[in-house]
Structures are given as C-alpha cells and as structure tokens.
C-alpha cells in the first residue's frame, strides 16, 4: 500500500512539474496565438493606437460598450510587410474575476479566432473549448454576435459565455471603427 501511495504522489508530482514547465505568461500566450492562427506570416509586431472620443462614441452606439485610452494591437505581416492578421487582447468580467482573451481578426474584418489567455473563475472554463470558439470564426462587426443568436451559450456556463461573446463583439467592432478611421 505504501508503494501505491508513493506511486500516486509521483504521478501528481510529474503532472505538476510538467504543467509548470509548459505554463506561459499572458503576453507569451498572445504571441503564440498569433503564430498559430497566422502561421504564414514573415514577421510579427506590436503597435499602439490611441482611441479618440469619436471612436469611443461610435463603439458605444454600436455595442453599448466602452473602450478608452490606448489599444495595443498585434500584427502579423507577410514578406512584403503587408498585414495578414491582427490580434487585440482584452479583459471582460466573468462571474467574479476578469477573463483575459485575444480576438484574432483578418484584414477583411472577420474574426479568425477567439482564444482565452487566462481564466480565473472557480467554474465555467469551458469557453476555452473548440466547440464554443469555432462559432466566432468568420463573424464580422455587422454580424449578430450575441448569445442565443449567432453564438450558442455553453450549457451551465452562461455568464462566461455571455462575457466573451460581448467582448468579441466589442473588439471586432473596435477594429472596424479604427479601420474606417484609417488607423491601419
């Protein structure tokens, strides 16, 4: 029985050590998401864009959500230096804690993917699963990105499903507004 206990403990020790070795920080995970979704890029960079009051007002009118200050945008570039993909990171409030995520957007303004970078809630981490995330691919600022409409909720995880759905709508609309302003 003692050997059995030691066996179990060494299995736990192995899992824990592996988990910690592969754990990445949020910026590292965001970079990894860009490489995964836009693997053909020749280079990747990061730049900031100031949000002026007109963009804030338009975004509020279209989504009921507010973004102010500066946005940091990840960009995937081809060999000629032309952008082939963008990534915006953000936090939305879950039941109790912020959920950190990245929305990856193609130059045509459609969502390439939504990835959860850090989930801190006690329950409901299922929004990280592929079955939920794939619903966002191809959605645009003009689509009906709302829970129960274009996006189906995860049974038993409505609060975080709604949070990330509203977040993705906010960022894809922000991208659209910044694009109209000719920021990139």
């Amino acid at each position, binding site marked *: 029985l003692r050997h059995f206990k030691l066996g179990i403990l060494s299995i736990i020790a192995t899992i824990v050590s592996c988990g910690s070795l592969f754990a990445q920080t949020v910026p590292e995970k965001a970079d990894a998401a860009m490489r995964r979704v836009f693997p053909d890029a020749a280079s990747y960079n990061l730049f900031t864009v100031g949000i002026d009051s007109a963009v804030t007002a338009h975004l509020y009118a279209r989504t009921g959500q507010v973004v102010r200050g500066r946005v940091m945008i990840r960009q995937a570039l081809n060999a000629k230096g032309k952008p082939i993909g963008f990534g915006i*990171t953000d*936090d939305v409030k879950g039941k109790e804690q912020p959920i950190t995520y990245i929305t990856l957007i193609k130059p045509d303004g459609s969502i390439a993917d939504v990835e959860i970078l850090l989930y801190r809630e006690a*329950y409901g981490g299922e929004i990280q699963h592929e079955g939920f995330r794939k619903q966002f691919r191809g959605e645009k600022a003009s689509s009906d990105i709302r829970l129960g409409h274009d996006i189906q909720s995860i049974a038993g995880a*409505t609060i975080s499903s709604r949070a990330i759905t509203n977040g993705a709508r906010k960022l894809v609309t922000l991208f659209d507004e910044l694009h109209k302003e000719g920021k990139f």
Partner: protein
Amino acid sequence: LASAIASQARGTVALTFVSVILLISSLTLNPSSSSAQDTIPRITDPTHIGGYGEMVYYDPNGTTPGQLDLSRIVIFLSHQFSDRWSFKSELETEHVKVEVSDPGGEFEIEQAFLDFHVSDALNFRGGLYLIPSGIINQTHEPTTFFSVGRPHVDEEVIPTTWREIGAGLFGDLGEYFKYQAYFGEGLSAAGYDETGIYEGRQEGKQSNPTNPSISAKIDYLPTPGLRFGASIYYQTNTASALQTQTDSGASTPVAFTSPLSVIAFDGQYDHGALHVRGEYAMDAIGNALQLSATLSRAIPSKVTGGYLDVGYNVIPLFCSSSDVEVIPFVRYEMLQHNFDATQGGNQSRNYVIAGVACRPTDGVIIKANYEFCSQSQFAVNENEFMTKGLLSIGLGYAF
C-alpha cells in the same frame, strides 16, 4: 475495522497534504506568472466584489397566511494574488437578520477557498468548497434557474448549499470532459432527521474529520449547448460521533457504522430560445434503522428525487433585436423517502410547477410560479407550507 480505515484515511490525507504543500512551494519558487502589460482598459484591480440575492413572496393555497422574505443576500469577495493563486469567498445572510432571541436567520460563510492553477488540466483547491453534486449546488445564483425557490431535490437529496472543508483537484480532461475530485470533512449522522441528510452537514464549523468524504464529478460537453454530469459522494461512516447509553449509564460510541453514498446525474441543453435541464439524485444511508433507534427519530434508508425543466424564451418571436428574455417554463419533480416498514414505509411526493421567468437585463430576474404538490404534507422545512398549492413570486439579482 472502522477505526482502522479511519486512521488509514487520516494518514493518507496527512501525507497527501504535506506532499501537495511541498510541490506547491517548489513551484512557487520559480513562478512563470506575470500580468499582461499590453491589454486595453484592463480590469487591473485584483480584488473583486460581487453578490446575489433573492426576495420572495409565498402565498399558500387556503387559509395559511403568506410570507415575505429576503431569503438570501450574498456578497462575493475574491482576490487574484497572481496568475496562479486566487481566493474566492461567499458571505451569506439568510432571512434578513441573525438574532439570538429570534431563530431562523443565518449568517454564514458559504465558500472560502484558495485555488492554485497549474494548467487547464490541473488546479488545486483547498478550503471551504462546494461539493460537486448535480447542477444547483455549485451554481445557485437565482438568475440561473427559472423557479422562485430552488428545486426540492437540491435541498432534500443534495443538501444545497453543501460545503465542506477539504482539498482537491479539478480541471479539463481534453476538449470534452471536466473533472473535480475532493477529500472533505464528511457528514455527521447526529444531525440526520426525517427529511434525510440535510442537517448532517458540518459546514466547516469546528468539524470532526474522523471519516473523511470523497466526492467527484465528471462533466461531458459534446457541443456548447449540451452538458451531462455524473457525480458521487462517499463516506465510510457518518456515525462515528454517535454515542449510546449502556446499562450502567455510561456513554460509549455506537457499535455500528453508517456509510453514505450520494449519486447524482444532471443534464442541460440550451439552444437559442430553448432551455432544458434536469437532475436526478439518490442518497443511500447505511444502517438507517439503527440510526433511527439511536437518534429516536425516523431516518430514511434512501432518499431519491429528480426533476425536468423545460423553458422557452418567447421574446425572439416578437422582437429578435431585443436582449430581454421572457421564459415560460414547466417543471415536473418527484421525491421519495424510503423508511422501514415499521416507520411507515415509502413516502413519495410529486410536484408540477408552471411559471414565467423574466430577465429584463443581464443579472436581473423576476419570477412567478404556481406549484402543485400531490401530497399535502410537505417536508418539515422553514420555507415550506402545509398545503397542496403554492404561488411564489420572486426578485433575484447577481452581479
């Protein structure tokens, strides 16, 4: 034998505890965590306050007077120490106030635990945690279910809110499965009564951990809108604290054991306007007749129950751009208490509940329902009425 198992279990718990502490310490020495520096309007405050509450009006059929109550007002307090470490708690006041001269109200810590995140597949939790059993025990905000009161199953079979001090693991098993597994303080049969195990909860209050419980749940999510859960709770002996009087008048520990198993299954389906959910649970109480004799009250040997809810949001039929939800729903629920033949045999109740739940905005719910019970003798419970019919109206919020 029981004490040998108990001491064995204690040894295992202690050894596991020490090892986990050592592992966590070694990980914390080399943390890879850091906050993202590059996000837009980031919610930077690591401390968060939230809450939920329910205000209800019950109007029983007949001459029994109605009742108004703030059933519960709960404050969440949580803190994120780092990307790996977090604390979460719920402080609850039931029935408005707590006063020595006026029993009924409760002020209690409903949850308080530390989480240590290793990866999506592995997280540790230690503290006062919620037993993973059915749907409502871990997710009980009033905005998440349609009826004014919680289902009866989540009181008499799964003693919601069921919490214990202990520790465990949880995480994802691949894309489609989630798991949770805990060791906890266990129940004490000293509190059991005619309704079953509800009053056997120790709730982390100077609890006796002689016979720890194990609990585990697996959730299966084949597609986003569909979820199935299966859970088990097992304790080798809930009667270790019970005493009997010998002929000479001295008290000695009872000579029997009372193992407990609680098995629960749940399912949820959400698609567009349609919402379906159900739970089934069973408590199997060992040596119920001997418990009844020791406690001088009838203890059921088995308590089972289940329900099925169907709700449909009708607003999209009229206005597809609206985010308001108005959800008429029906529920069928059954409960059965199995007593020994000498104690009256089996007692079963069936309920039909119909009503409407309205969510005018995220986090707010207004509900009304009428409940019909097949038996006029409801369980002995402060919130229930000796009647066949009951109108309930409720306001709930969660933020």
